[in-house]
């Protein structure tokens, strides 16, 4: 009668059947696919969050182009999304100054003195926050025709 020990010794030396080997390979491949899909899903959700906020470099390029209008839109997008990092402060100031200056000129030329005063205050407040972008003030005033 063959005992269980001899059976185990025999099975230890036996090669895996081809079908089992193929299944093992398939499992390894499917596991890699699973890991890839998991990474893709995590990346997709992170991208959704990241897409909601503009990075400083995007604001910088808009400012360099003189596209202050677009900059205002981007700054308000960041603000509504709660992005208040100090890194953005001076970019926000440039956009605020531009927005206030646009409204200031409109109020001045339409005779709305109360409105003009309000926007002038906002311009002064933004000017105080321009920091390293202080030269943008003159560019904006020139662009808008404000003396």
């Amino acid at each position, binding site marked *: *009668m*063959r005992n269980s020990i001899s*059976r185990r010794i025999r*099975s230890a030396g036996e090669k895996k*059947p081809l*079908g*089992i080997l193929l*299944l*093992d390979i*398939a*499992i390894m491949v*499917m*596991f890699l*696919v*699973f890991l890839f*899909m*998991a990474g*893709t*899903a995590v*990346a*997709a*959700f992170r*991208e*959704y969050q990241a897409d*909601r906020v503009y990075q400083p470099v995007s604001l910088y390029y808009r400012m360099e*182009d*003189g*596209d*202050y*209008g*677009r900059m*205002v*839109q981007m700054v*308000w*997008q960041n*603000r*509504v*999304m709660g992005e208040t990092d100090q890194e953005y402060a001076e970019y926000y100031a440039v956009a605020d100054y531009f927005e206030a200056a*646009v409204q200031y*000129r*409109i109020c001045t*030329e*339409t005779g709305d003195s109360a409105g003009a005063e309000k926007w002038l205050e906002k311009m002064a407040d933004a000017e105080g926050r321009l920091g390293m972008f202080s030269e943008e003030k003159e560019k904006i005033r020139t*662009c*808008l025709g404000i003396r």
Partner: protein
Amino acid sequence: MKCENCGANLTLEEENCPFCGQPNPHAKQHIRDMRHYQNEFEDTKEHVYKSTKLYTQIVVRVVILAVLAILSVVLFVLADNAYSFMRDREEKRSAKNYEEYSRILDGYLEEENFRAFEIFCEEHVLRSYDGPYAPKYGKIISVSRSYVYLMDYLWRYAFPLSYTTIQQAELVSDGLENFYRELNEEWTSSYGVKRVSDEKVTAAMEKMEENVREFLFIYCGFTREEADSIPELSKAKRMLLLEEKLEGRLSDEK
């Protein structure tokens, strides 16, 4: 059975007679047969054992493969629909936070911060045509969206960049058409929810219209009459007027 030699009683397990030593031919055959059956039994048992083990190994692997495949498909669907999933979640959250969000929206309208208003509505999926925000804010959500797009086009129109072309006039023309259409449309929601009148909302829409006219007058070279007549102009006349104003500015830039 009896021994053929001495007649003693024998069993099938006794190969030789215990008394005279004579070989027991029946026992030999029996023992041979028993050994054969025993070997066959062991072989069959081992075969069944191996087959069961193999079967178990295959089944376990197939189950693992199936689970991994299903999880991969689920993750693929999630990844592919991440945007919709997040938007749906945000919409549900907005419905739950109606009081708080309404306060924020009213605050933006009071400050005349229509840009922030539109962005807030967009990010929190506040729909203009259904949901709890539709009755009070439905119309202004639509109007503010077209207003923000229009102002983006107008800013580039009024302050052309190095790569701004005459096509900007077409964008502004379409933007104006959309804005005035949204503003003047008799608003109803698709689910029959009646619009709730609100002074702040009405005043905000009037202010948006005023902003557009003022901007055209101050920054785009329009006369007062031209700016006021924009809603009544045909598409072709509006385009001509916008192109004429823009061409001058583009050539000045050059």
